[in-house]
């Protein structure tokens, strides 16, 4: 009898493990390949030449390339241009443009003094021959001459293009 009882116990235990000790689930893996996006700076932003007195002011460069002087800024005759970017990629998707959200500094070529570009704007992207053109403008905040002496100011900024 002892032999029989032990045998029944072992059988019950093994049955439980084989039925409920392992389970599987089927999942799904995804990924999406999209056309390669390229962006090229066709024309660099150039705010041109201007002068200011000790009070400073601002210079608005519109995405269309127009310059507007404010405060004591006086525009001088010179070449100026909005930035022009050409983007290629998924023309079937809408394009989002991410411009700097904070003022970006330009550095004076001799003193390292800084002048800031802010209020970045862009126009409605235009599609031509399968490529998209985006024009970018910004506003230059000019301090008094003691802070922003005459000279050349340069700097870099980042623009992100996203196909949605």
């Amino acid at each position, binding site marked *: *009898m*002892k*032999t*029989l*009882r*032990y*045998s*029944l*116990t072992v059988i*019950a*235990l093994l049955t*439980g*493990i084989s*039925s*409920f*000790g*392992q*389970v*599987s*689930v*089927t*999942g*799904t*893996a*995804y*990924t*999406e*390949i*999209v*056309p*390669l*996006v390229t962006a090229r700076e066709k024309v660099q932003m150039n705010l041109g030449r201007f002068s200011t007195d000790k009070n400073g002011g601002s210079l608005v460069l519109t995405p269309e390339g127009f310059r507007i002087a404010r405060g004591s800024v006086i525009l001088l005759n010179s070449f100026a241009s909005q930035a022009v970017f050409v983007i290629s*990629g998924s023309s079937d*998707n809408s394009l989002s443009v991410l411009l700097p959200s904070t003022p970006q500094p330009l550095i004076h070529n001799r003193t390292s003094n800084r002048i800031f570009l802010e209020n970045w704007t862009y126009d409605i992207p235009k599609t031509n021959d399968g490529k998209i053109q985006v024009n970018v403008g910004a506003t230059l905040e000019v301090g008094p001459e003691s802070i922003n002496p005459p000279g050349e100011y340069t700097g870099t900024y980042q623009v992100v293009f*996203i*196909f*949605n």
Partner: protein
Amino acid sequence: MAAIIMMAGFSTKVMAQATETTAAAANIITPIAITETSSLHFGTMAVLAGTGGTCVLSTQGVRTATDGVNLSVQSPGATNAAYNVSGAVNTTYAITLPSTITVNESTSGSSMTINSILARTASAGADGLTGTLSADGTDSFTVGGTLNVTAGQSTGLYSGTFDVTVAYN
């Protein structure tokens, strides 16, 4: 066979009856269960026409690209496969993952493979294939891997299925 043994036992008792109390045991275990809470998604990416590469999705959701693969921030983003496991309290269990997963794009018929598939359990806090069910009999784990993208891979949405198994140790 059992009936024969019992008959033999009764015949013994007629000759000399004796009673002995012995222990009987049965171990009723809580079935182990698994549910998927998130699909494995490597997100959106592009690849150079002349150079392939990989997209590695860590078990903690960090995506990195190699060679010609360019990751995109377009939606949908990348997500780990995620699972909840339940069963016997304070019990270890083993995870079995596929060695490769194939994903296909229906229009072009193109495919890609996912390998180096890894799991990370909440209980272990590290990549591995063993977890421990907690005092309330639960645990969870995430799965990542490496997607292999060939040069000029056809664009489109790729998908494929795979099995994940958990078993008591």
